[in-house]
């Protein structure tokens, strides 16, 4: 498994674990980042990068459809959209939580197809 979320904390941070290195720790909200285009610097709302909380250098790029863990991966995107809005501009942090979740669900369906949505 990649650097993966284990628990979502109330402040938006993540308890993370890396099976490769058996490292664990907390990833601060500010360090839960969308992947960025190396040329334009624009964030990609379909991807989140989690770096090993141990600082060892291992990193995982999570797709919005959930990749290695559908439920936890999708929840990570929902939390980020609800807390911060989406960089695409379709969801603002002030919007109702349901809008953030609906936006992520649409992204999931577009990436892996209907039936991949793992949240309630």
């Amino acid at each position, binding site marked *: 498994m990649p650097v993966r979320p*284990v628990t979502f904390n109330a402040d938006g941070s993540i308890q993370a674990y890396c099976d490769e290195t058996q490292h664990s720790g907390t990833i601060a909200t500010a360090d839960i980042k969308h992947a960025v285009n190396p040329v334009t610097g624009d964030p990609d709302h379909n991807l989140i990068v989690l770096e090993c909380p141990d600082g*060892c250098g291992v990193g995982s790029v999570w*797709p919005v459809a959930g*990749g290695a863990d559908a439920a936890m991966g999708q929840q990570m995107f929902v939390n980020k959209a609800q807390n911060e809005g989406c960089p695409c501009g379709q969801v603002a942090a002030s919007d109702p939580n349901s809008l953030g979740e609906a936006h992520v669900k649409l992204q999931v369906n577009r990436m892996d197809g209907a039936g991949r949505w793992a949240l309630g």
Partner: protein
Amino acid sequence: MARTNSVNFTGAHQYPLANAATDLFKKEDVQQLAAAHDGHDHTPGNGLPIPAGAIPNGLITSAMIADGTIQGTDIANGAITSVQIADGQVLAADIGVAQVTSTKLGPDVPRGVNLLVNGGFEIYDRGANTPTSVNGGVVCDRWNLSLNGTSTGTASLDSSQADLNSAVCAKVVYNAGSGGSSLYQQLGSEWVVARGKWVTLSARVRCSVVGGARISLGDGAAIASSSTNTQTGGMETLSVSFFNNGANPGCNIYLELLQTATFYWDNVMLVIGQNAPCDYLPLQQADEKARCLRYFERLTDSWLATGYAMQANVGEVFLPYYPKGGAPTITYGPAIGNLVWRIVGSPYALTSFSVTSPGIRGVLINGNTAVTMGANQPGITFGLAGGGYITAEWNP
């Protein structure tokens, strides 16, 4: 009274009967009676038929029955058992079409390919085999450890107790606490292949405590469990069948850890059909490995893909991988610096790493390097150095 004639002896053997003392007695009466008695054989006209009660039990043998004269209606329903049939005499033509069901098959009859991937725990595709002691930790490809509540345990691969036809098994040293725990394989949306069918799960286990091990499978709404293990001295087979009504999309396979004990699990099999148990049917290693690659692969080759330098110090390549079930999570390690671009000259370590549009068959990789490669420079190569790796993982 008038003289009468016998009614059960008729024809040539009929004889007169004197019913009253005044009846005339003739010596011919005795002669006719003697003649009738001489021909008495209970056939019609030669006396009454023999009633069943006149024959003692066990007196009639098969020699008294003409060959080929016993009809099906002469035999009571359900009276003939297998001991009446000589071995090897039931022919295929004696069995109705579509009358043999899977429950008639013994455990050694293959029921088809295993619906589980890596049921024998043989494939470990993640570098060094490292024991895991965390909830959700990876035991080997497709198998994870579930620890809940205050329960603790360590799962690893073990070769000392592996079952026959197996190189390794999954070992769990477990301390039972407040939460149930297991090894599990998540079938998720891929469970659809068993919709509307009976399925049977079987597994081999050796557990240090009687009653400590059990297997279960469920679709989230209902769950079915096997009996628990009955011995501690060796491997035994647990089995359970479950009807998947198709109402729920997901399914998990649980190798349950019920008590504090040491467990050795091996050769887990899930097949369509209501069979208990069903022997493990191993795949050739190449096939099992290919199935595992649908979910996880670890790339460690020195050179993986070619692309171009889209800017002076930004490279872009398309990295193909084995087709996944969906967009995978891409992991790099042990650090970004282990990923390199190669162009004219030595490899250049990346200083940033990103991906674009991860797909089922590959992903576009972008990365910066501190070295100027030249804008729109074709022909750069992406590779790994110093133990670098990239993994792609998708799970249902």
